[in-house]
């Protein structure tokens, strides 16, 4: 399989504040990376920066930003714009907010189909796309306005638009967070189906390690703007090494087992203007030691498995 995306030392800053502090991402065609972390860890900002969708005031820098053997960091906006949608696409957290409220679903599909350069009648293609993402009665749905559909239906419709564009890299930013459990399962099933149907690479952002376990080939755990552990999904789940990852998995297991006392990680994310000089997690870590005050490099701990911690290294 060929390399789709290679990112080295991606940084996003807001003035003096560092939101993303040097992350590396490697993604192959057909591969899914689960990007895990709590709200505020920088995972959404990192992905928005890949599509250059950050609001003004946030600056992106990277040592290496290569997509399909092309250095996309140096592209001017007018050459980068055509890549959006057709090459790199994104599914967002809030399906209801993702649609122009003044336009029907049909308009949205027609716009995406036109953007894909499709010849011939758009309607047939739209019906086919909606059917492909499991929307019942697609002809009626085309006539609906966004506020007349449920979040799950809208998320499917947005995915149908992205399927129309056939991008090679799809970022999904917590696409099931705002949906109820049953719909979440259906949307995850749809993503697994897409993984088979499209020859695309996926970056699946989630705060739920259980979701990542279902969908990702590899997992990267983000904390305070850095990736603190990355490795194959099975390894991370079976043998998490970083104390933060261990905490996350213990919490998830306790939730799954409906334990009486929840294994919670004490404390909270450091504020952006008060990041500790060394390991970002050290203030919350039970195993912290004086050496943690030094910046920690990624250390290999197994095949394809690395972490940013000096424990057992």
């Amino acid at each position, binding site marked *: 399989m060929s390399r789709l995306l290679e990112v080295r030392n991606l940084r996003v800053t807001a003035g003096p504040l560092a939101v993303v502090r040097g992350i590396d991402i490697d993604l192959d065609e057909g591969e899914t990376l689960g990007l895990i972390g709590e709200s505020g860890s920088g995972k959404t900002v990192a992905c928005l920066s890949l599509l250059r969708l950050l609001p003004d005031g946030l600056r992106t820098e990277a040592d290496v930003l290569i997509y399909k053997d092309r250095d996309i960091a140096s592209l001017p906006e007018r050459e980068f714009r055509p890549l959006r949608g057709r090459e790199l696409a*994104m599914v967002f957290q809030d399906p209801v907010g993702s649609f122009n409220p*003044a336009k029907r679903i049909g308009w949205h599909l027609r*716009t995406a189909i036109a953007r894909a350069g499709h010849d011939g009648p758009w309607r047939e293609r739209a019906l086919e796309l909606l059917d492909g993402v499991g929307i019942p009665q697609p002809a009626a749905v085309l006539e609906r306005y966004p506020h007349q559909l449920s979040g799950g239906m809208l998320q499917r419709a947005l995915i149908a638009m992205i399927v129309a564009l056939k991008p090679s890299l799809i970022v999904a930013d917590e696409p099931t967070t705002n949906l109820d459990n049953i719909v979440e399962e259906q949307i995850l099933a749809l993503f697994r189906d897409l993984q088979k149907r499209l020859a695309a690479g996926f970056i699946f952002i989630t705060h739920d390690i259980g979701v990542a376990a279902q969908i990702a080939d590899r997992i990267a755990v983000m904390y305070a703007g850095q990736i603190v552990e990355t490795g194959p999904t099975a390894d991370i789940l079976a043998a998490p090494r970083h104390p933060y990852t261990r905490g996350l998995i213990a919490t998830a297991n306790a939730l799954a087992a409906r334990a009486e006392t929840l294994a919670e990680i004490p404390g909270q994310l450091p504020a952006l203007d008060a990041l500790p000089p060394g390991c970002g997690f050290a203030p919350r870590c039970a195993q912290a030691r004086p050496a943690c005050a030094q910046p920690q490099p990624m250390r290999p701990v197994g095949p394809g498995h690395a972490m940013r911690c000096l424990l057992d290294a």
Partner: protein
Amino acid sequence: MAASRRAAVLLLTVLAGAMVVFFAMKAAPGDPALSALGENARPELVAAFRRLHNLDLPVGEQFATWISGALRGDFGRSLTLAGGVPVGQLIAGRLPVTAFIGLYALILAGVISMIVGTVAALSRGTALDTLMTSFAVLGVSMPDFWLGYVLVFFLALNLPIFPSYGFVSPSDSLPGALLSGFLPALAIAAPMAAVFSRVLRAALLEVMHRPYVQVQRSLGLSSSFVFLHTIFRNALIPYVTIIGLQVRYLLGGVVVIERVFGIPGIGSLMVDGAFGRDYPVIQACALTFLVIVLGTNLLVDLLCARLDPKARGR
């Protein structure tokens, strides 16, 4: 709201408004007969005048007579104008002039505010935005009658294209009407354009930060497409709503500006009527304005429902 219910509400509002207009006039001090005939008129003449204009009837009956006539288009006769001209005829003659000036002002305000509001929003935070916003503040703070005189002073008296006084009726010459109506329409439009621009600017900026705009950009749609079909399209909803709310100020402006520029419209008819205590004329003018405001509000409601699917009856 169902159309029939809306029509019923509209009719009731017109009736209630007509009552307010009528009884407010009745409560005003002064005797119309004496002001028409003079303080020293002979008593039998005053009595005849009162009979002729139904002023001898009880107030309730006077209202019933007036409103039933008004519904048939008969607004009574003028108390002051020579020969007691039927008021309906006066209104019919002057309505096109006022409608022309009002519509002209509304279109000018719309065009100006679309340009100013859009430019300000797109250049947010720059000197251009500050300039546009300052003009808007200036526009809001200038009274229209004052602006009318300023425009006459600076434009009409220095440039030979615009007449400083008088008006060519649109039925005589449309270019003449557009030219002679430009300054008065601009004087009425400027304060409205200022309000509209600010609303449009704020609405555009608000919509620009909505998640669906980011989604459309993520699909690689061009910024002009996203602006036109999504940002501008959604900002139109508050914009059109505010235009509907401002129509009554537009009519206030019309009354004053018609006077300033000597335009023979409903506004100046109403002012003349007020000076002469010509109650039938004032009442008919007020009722006409009321119907125009209600009609415009209805139009704006319907337009908003077309623009905003969420506001549409389900």
